[in-house]
């Protein structure tokens, strides 16, 4: 039990040191903008349908849930605002980030892990290049930018999912649904949701590149790296969600008096 705990702490520490090395490389010898754009394009194209669809259904689910709750109070008019607020602030970023950890995280980890066990990373070093600069940094930045974009796109789609379900399931017309969104969903809520997206994207990029880069032990090792990427990112995202929620509530209390 104690060994398992120290192993986890060891892994987290090594991951932080790895991120420090990536940041240091970005500062001292940055990769080309072209390689980052290539990664952004690749990740976004590969993954856009999944978070868009997930976002759509998260919005729809939230609307169904809220309908059941607020119908009893005769406050169905506020459905759009409440559902969108809940999705944008909490459920949306969390669920879409989970989805991305499976899609983008697992793919990147497997790709880098395969490069490691087939000695491609050693070959890069032997050919006089820095593998962090050549293959990690473009992926790291690419994943952050595109995950943030994909999460934001998923959240945007959640409004449509909620809107459709509001009309079909709750019998509320779209105008009415949209009317109360600005009343309840403040800029702070949107900012809070986007901030969470950014933090989740950072965790995803850090864990999957670290796990892939440090994979050892052939095909089995790559499998292990992919599994631990999925587990670590999900745990990391949940913990970060709790922390960012706490942070944003505190900020809300301090600067806006809990509005």
């Amino acid at each position, binding site marked *: 039990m104690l060994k398992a705990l120290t192993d986890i702490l060891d892994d987290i520490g090594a991951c932080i040191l790895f991120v420090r090395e990536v940041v240091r490389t970005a500062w001292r010898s940055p990769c080309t903008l072209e390689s980052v754009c290539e990664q952004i394009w690749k990740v976004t194209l590969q993954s856009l349908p999944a978070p868009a669809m997930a976002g759509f259904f998260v919005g729809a689910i939230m609307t169904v849930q809220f309908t059941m709750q607020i119908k009893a109070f005769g406050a169905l008019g506020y459905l759009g605002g409440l559902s969108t607020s809940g999705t944008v602030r909490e459920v949306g970023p969390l669920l879409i980030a989970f989805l991305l950890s499976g899609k983008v995280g697992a793919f990147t980890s497997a790709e880098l892990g395969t*490069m490691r066990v*087939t*000695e*491609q990373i050693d*070959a*890069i*070093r032997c050919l*006089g*290049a820095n593998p962090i600069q050549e293959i990690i940094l473009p992926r790291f930045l690419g994943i952050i930018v595109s995950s943030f974009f994909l999460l934001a796109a998923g959240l945007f789609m959640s409004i449509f999912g909620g809107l459709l379900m509001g009309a079909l399931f709750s019998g509320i017309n779209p105008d009415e649904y949209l009317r109360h969104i600005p009343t309840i969903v403040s800029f702070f809520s949107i900012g809070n949701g986007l901030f969470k997206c950014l933090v989740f994207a950072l965790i995803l990029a850090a864990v999957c590149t670290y796990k892939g880069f440090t994979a050892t032990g052939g095909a089995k090792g790559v499998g292990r790296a992919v599994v631990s990427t999925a587990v670590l990112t999900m745990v990391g995202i949940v913990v970060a969600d709790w922390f960012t929620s706490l942070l944003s509530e505190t900020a809300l209390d301090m600067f806006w008096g809990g509005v």
Partner: protein
Amino acid sequence: MIEFREVRKSFGEREILKGITFSVPEGQILFILGTSGTGKSVLLKNIVGLLQPTSGAILIDEVDVSQLKEEQLFPIRKKCGMVFQHPALFDSLSVFENVAFGLRKHSPELTEKEVQARVRECLSLVHLIDVEDKMPQEISYGMQKRVSLARTVAVSPRILLFDEPTTGLDPVTTRAINRLIFELSRKLKTTSLVVSHDMQCALEIADHIIVLDKGEIVDQGSPEGLKKSRHELTKDFLKEALDAEGAH
């Protein structure tokens, strides 16, 4: 030119290399033979700094490279080209881009035309034509190994390190690769270290052979000298080589 002085390497409690000492004069082909898991690849990776020895010194042109930092290893890696056990070609790059990769890193002053010419020259050295535009997964494993060889020689290293270059290849391709190693070493006047368990090939092309067992040098000598060896492991290797020759 390359000298190992009492080199030891451990992974945790396990000692893989137990005080290795030998030297390779310039222009020679040295074969390091041993069964799997005896530390042959570890030995090779210590030369280019992919691993660092626990103790001892590795001298290349009188410079101890054993404790150099990553950025200090750049000139050493320009000097030493390594061909890996796997072809280790970059999946996302074409054959041309693979061969040009090291060239662009080591010689940024080269124009695109010069890079193209050098890539073609290196591919023809390993007897490959019309494959520049292909992706690594579109060519055979043997061809991938040759591309890997071309990529390594592209930066004109003075030392060539081969990590089991013929593992996983059929006998015909194995012979072709062995011939290539010999041709390249002589044509480019390089010092070559070949890690292998192929005694037949070692007898054909090596100037000197070292037999490694459990992290220690147990036997060494010229191919002719080793044929008279009384060491059990060397005799086993020789028997295998004779059997293989007989089969041909």
